[in-house]
């Protein structure tokens, strides 16, 4: 107990009568687990106060704490609307914002009345402006696709954010009109936009932040209030690095991320709402009752492809499994471009502005052809590339399907993996939900429906609006909004798309939280030493599903110390991983006293990822510096505390 407690105790009752805004947080801290760190010293003070109060007032008012918490809870619901989180879907190509308006989800429109806005940031002289300009800035011109492809705009941020320059996706982005430079050493790629005939550098986060500022301003003008909290949709395959970068971009834009939601899970929430409404209409289906419906959600946009399965009943959607990869319209477009112009790469090696213009024109023509092939069996491509070359040819659907065979194969693989992970057969699926721009491609529709043995897809969802609508619903639910008609009486129980674990001796990866585990979750595993008398061990945390650590993403590392002296293989090191509802990962590790289940010394708690750039180097440097001296290894299964799985 701190020395100043007696003094505090005198002021404590007064403070208790007039609870400050900090009180509820401290209260919840007091009553719930303390695995979470104390957010700030203020809370710590409050916590002590409350302890003092309860000591002093035990006899007459043992429940002061609980009643305080309830009062402040009411206050919260009244002010909640000001804090209501909006839903944002920043797509590789398009983006949209939606908000719960008190009765339903409404998509916001920009000054040109568009609900779906092109995602890009145009760099001009000393300013940069994105698509979402609105309100006071309404005289801002909308840039045409041709200008966006002139090299002065940065787009496809979502494909670049949080990736190192060794990433194949970054390499594939080199044929975009703006500059993407790689040195292949595992650091952030260099990207630059053409401003006054100079390549001016920027970063994907910066571009995303500028774009988000524009979106935020647009929403604030329309909703006539400040926006702070957002629910942002992300692809399933985003690792925690990418998530951190997105969060950072949001912070730069003055936005607080309430949830980063994998796109199909946002769709699942919307599905849960629709199912519940249907059930309420047809029957008086009570809470938790009603039949369970299983849906497969296939989402493919310009940059990413996601598959998820969800089991829904009584407004609760439980994500059973998720699979995702970086595959989308961009890849389809690239395949078509190379098919139309096999020497496409050579066209842009010297980044001549005329060549960039030609590339832009070809890109527009190819994109248009792909769109038209969704409804036509063949399209005529007529494009003057401006440098004397004209392209005139017919592209057949069969040809299109042939050049994109690899894309369809990957889609098929993802769906099969997802079904296997969720232990479902095609017959178990009630509904197949197809969302995202690429889900309009006939071949993809037939492929998904075929694998799920369905005649037709689920109806009642707009393929381009489902994810952002779900995000806005989550924003309302997680902001504590309730709806008398029960429209917000639902929940998506998220799952972790990637396994989380640590490196063991020999470079193997041992998952502690398996992929597709429902979150929030806390799991732990006991490891042991690999050296006699080893007193320290490195906990190297990875995310991914590869058997070896190199195949996964390094999240960070720290050293566990004070391992009791013992022969190798006998000391016990407990590593616990915790993911909260906001998807924050904390790793908690320490050595146990020999032969007991008690900690030998205080444990370490580390929020991950701790790393920033050059993470590929860190792993190599660790091995080079420490060899296997600080390695851990698993202990035999029979000695491991058993888990219920």
């Amino acid at each position, binding site marked *: 107990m701190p020395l100043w407690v007696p003094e505090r105790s005198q002021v404590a009752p007064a403070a208790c009568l007039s609870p400050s805004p900090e009180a509820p947080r401290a209260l919840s801290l007091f009553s719930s687990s303390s695995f979470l760190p104390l957010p700030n010293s203020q809370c710590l003070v409050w916590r002590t106060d409350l302890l003092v109060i309860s000591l002093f007032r035990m006899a007459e008012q043992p429940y002061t704490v609980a009643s305080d918490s309830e009062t402040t809870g009411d206050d919260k619901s009244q002010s909640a609307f000001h804090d209501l989180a909006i839903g944002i879907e920043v797509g590789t190509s398009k983006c949209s914002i939606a908000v719960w308006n008190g009765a339903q989800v409404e998509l916001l429109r920009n000054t040109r009345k568009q609900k779906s806005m092109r995602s890009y940031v145009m760099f001009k002289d000393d300013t940069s402006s994105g698509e979402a300009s609105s309100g006071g800035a309404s005289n801002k011109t909308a840039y045409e696709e041709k200008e966006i492809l002139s090299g002065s705009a940065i787009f496809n941020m979502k494909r670049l954010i949080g990736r190192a320059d060794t990433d194949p996706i970054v390499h594939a982005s080199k044929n975009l009109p703006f500059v993407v430079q790689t040195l292949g050493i595992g650091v952030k790629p260099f990207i630059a936009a053409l401003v006054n005939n100079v390549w001016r550098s920027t970063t994907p986060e910066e571009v995303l932040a500028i774009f988000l500022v524009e979106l935020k301003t647009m929403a604030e003008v329309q909703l006539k209030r400040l926006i702070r909290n957002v629910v942002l949709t992300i692809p399933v395959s985003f690792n925690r690095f990418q998530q951190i970068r997105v969060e950072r971009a949001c912070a730069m834009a003055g936005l607080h991320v309430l949830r980063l939601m994998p796109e199909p899970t946002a769709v699942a929430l919307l599905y849960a709402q629709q199912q519940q409404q249907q059930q309420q209409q047809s029957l008086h289906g009570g809470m938790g009752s009603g039949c369970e419906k299983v849906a497969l959600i296939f989402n493919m946009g310009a940059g990413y492809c996601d598959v998820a399965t969800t089991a829904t009943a009584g407004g609760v959607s439980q994500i059973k499994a998720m699979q995702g990869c970086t595959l989308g319209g961009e890849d389809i477009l690239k395949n078509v471009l190379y098919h139309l112009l096999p020497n496409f790469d050579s066209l842009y090696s010297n980044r001549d502005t005329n060549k960039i213009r030609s590339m832009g024109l070809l890109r527009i023509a190819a994109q248009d052809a792909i769109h038209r092939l969704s409804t036509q069996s063949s399209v005529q491509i007529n494009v003057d590339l401006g440098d004397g070359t004209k392209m005139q040819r017919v592209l057949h659907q069969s040809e299109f399907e042939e050049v994109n065979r690899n894309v369809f194969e990957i889609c098929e693989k993802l769906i099969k993996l997802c079904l296997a992970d969720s232990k479902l057969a095609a017959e178990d699926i009630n509904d197949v939900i197809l969302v995202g721009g690429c889900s309009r491609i006939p071949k993809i529709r037939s492929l998904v429906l075929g694998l799920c043995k369905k005649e037709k897809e689920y109806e009642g969802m707009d393929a381009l609006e489902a994810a952002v609508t779900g995000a806005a619903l989550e924003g309302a639910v*997680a902001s504590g909004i309730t709806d008398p008609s029960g429209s917000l009486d*639902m929940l998506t129980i998220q799952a972790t798309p990637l396994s989380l674990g640590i490196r063991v001796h020999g470079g193997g990866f041992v998952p502690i939280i398996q992929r597709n585990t429902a979150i929030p979750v806390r799991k732990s595993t006991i490891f042991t030493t690999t050296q006699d008398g080893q007193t320290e061990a490195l906990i190297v945390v990875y995310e991914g599903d590869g058997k070896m650590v190199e195949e996964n993403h390094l999240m960070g590392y720290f050293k566990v110390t004070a391992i009791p002296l013992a022969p190798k293989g006998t000391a016990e090191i407990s590593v*616990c991983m915790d993911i909260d509802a906001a998807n924050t990962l904390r790793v908690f590790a320490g050595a146990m006293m020999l032969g007991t*289940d008690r900690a030998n010394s205080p444990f370490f708690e580390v929020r991950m990822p701790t790393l920033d750039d050059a993470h590929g180097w860190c792993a190599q440097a660790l091995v080079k510096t420490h060899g296997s001296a600080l390695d851990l290894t698993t202990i035999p299964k029979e000695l491991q505390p058993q888990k219920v799985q």
Partner: protein
Amino acid sequence: MAMSGGLNFAVLPPPVCISVRPRSVVALAAAEGTPETAERRARSLYEVLRVRETATAGEIKAAYRSMAKRFHPDVTAGRGGDDFVEIRRAYEALSDPAARARYDLSIGRWRQGACGLSGRWETDQCW
């Protein structure tokens, strides 16, 4: 508020125990000073889900859902994450027939000690 708190450690006998040791360490490091009542420590998985021990798989699933709707951090504005983790653990154990059978056996054995020598049907009457 009955479900608040949530660090429910050293609960179960080993066969189905969920990482006994690490959890108690977590508790050691984290929950010092938190008033844990003996009653809360002894809560069975069935009590966590608020179902009868004879509940069917469907009832368990429905109970899990309705508990999720009350205690998931999304609906409790971020509070009570541990409650949900506990509910989830209980559901994971009870929704898997093999794990449930093992758990039943373990609490059956445990209760045999408490209720004297008796068969399982009698231990059920204990509740």
